[in-house]
């Protein structure tokens, strides 16, 4: 039986979830999209996600806190950080704390699908869900 990759998508911009969720569900992932990072921390505590995609700059709880919580919950989880602008220090901090990759805004749905595919490969379950990277 194939495992379905469980993805948690966190961005306080509603449109990001609205567009990316269908784009990822279409290729066979199970996606939960949240706008509230505090609710996301709660969900991370309750569940073990394979991949977490989080925006870095959010009010109240930022992406680094999400990353730390995810790493604490499970070493397996791959965290992909989305950032509004390239900040070397922030990128270094995220990578030091165990982020899998960083994606800069603006990006295409295909860019995120590629990074997720790489993360899935790292989780060694890519073959099981039979995902093909789409052409951009």
């Amino acid at each position, binding site marked *: 039986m194939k495992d379905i990759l469980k993805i948690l998508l966190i961005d306080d*911009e509603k*449109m*990001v979830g*609205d*567009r*990316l969720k*269908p*784009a990822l569900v*279409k290729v066979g992932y199970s996606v939960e999209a949240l706008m509230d990072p505090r609710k996301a921390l709660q969900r991370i505590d309750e569940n073990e996600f394979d991949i977490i995609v989080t925006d870095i*700059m*959010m*009010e*109240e709880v*930022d992406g680094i806190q999400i990353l730390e919580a995810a790493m604490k919950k499970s070493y397996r989880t791959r965290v992909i950080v989305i950032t*509004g*602008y390239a*900040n070397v220090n922030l990128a270094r901090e995220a990578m030091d704390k165990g982020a899998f990759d960083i994606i*800069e*805004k*603006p*990006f*295409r*749905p*295909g860019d995120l699908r590629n990074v997720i595919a790489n993360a899935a490969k790292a989780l060694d379950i890519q073959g099981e869900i039979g995902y093909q990277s789409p052409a951009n």
Partner: protein
Amino acid sequence: MPNTPETKIKSALSPQIRSAQKKRATAVANEKLENRPCLSFRWCVFAGYGLLLLGALSICLAEAAIGMHLIWGNALPWGILLLATGMVSFLISKRFMKRIARLIGLTRQISRGDFTPIGPISKYRDEFTTVNVALNRMLEELDTWHTGMEESHQMAAIGTLTAGVSHEINNPLNNIMLTAYSLEEEYADLSDEERREMIADLLQETERVHKIVRNLQDFAREGECVLKTLELGKLVKETALLVTNQAKALGAKINIKVQPHLPYIRGDQRQWKQVFINLILNALDATAKDGKIDIHVEKDASPGFVAVHVENIGAVIPRHILSYIFNPFFTTKPPGKGAGLGLSVSQGIVTRHGGRIDVTTRDGRYTRFTVRIPSTDIAPEQCISRRETLVMTKG
């Protein structure tokens, strides 16, 4: 005993007579007897024991007469001369003091950053005319230097804002990109309603980018219409939008309260934005993580003024540096974080608009910058040309 001159002389002479009982002496009485002139012959009035009284001369001179003689004879011309000299020196010193007081006032005006050329200090050509000319030359140079400093500081502020603004622009840009790609990829599978919704999202996000860019342009570019009637509350809110991301990155919150029905202000929108950006960025720099900045826009207690208070809860400026903070190049930030021009430039802008900027700090509680701006009755949309602006600002 009758109070005649003789009895008075006798009583006046008695001490000297007693002390000179056994020797020859000349006794003199110089008592004040009467305050009227007289010259008369008198009998010897007294012969003391053991003394040979040769005679007594009674001389009576009225003191008032001596006084009058002295005054009319010598003192009056000198007195008049002295009075005249005093009056002349008083008038001269008054004239000088008036001009010196004006000069002191002018130095205060200059120190506040108002480099408006000064009018004549004296009515006539004198030493002050030279000072006047020299001061105006200095003011002209200061104005040129200050304008250059403002521009360079503005460039630095733009640099600081760019990071935040690029993030602010990248968010809607990302929404546009994701929506456009989704529309392209899933077009065939989408219902008409879903397509329309996505197109509406595209338009909304494009408008969002446009608004941010326009806001930044207002700050960065000098438009043709410099002096405008402005809505202060709106201006402060727009300015705070430019620094939203700096605040977000720090986890700090900016609360803005605008009193309704505020009078308008008049001025250069770009320059006012620069003042508020400086104040908010400074407040953010001094704010601890998860700190709070309160901005209140309200009518000032002084009639004809509106005030903007930028209050930084928890951050305090040490008292010993309070008097230096408006000085150019004074900074407490680490090297590379600030040139120390923000407050100095802001003070210059505020003063040129006829306003005032003050700071109050309460130990361990808050630091509050207050900008007081003259209000105006001129309705919006009436632009004044750059030329007229210069005339107005330079007095």
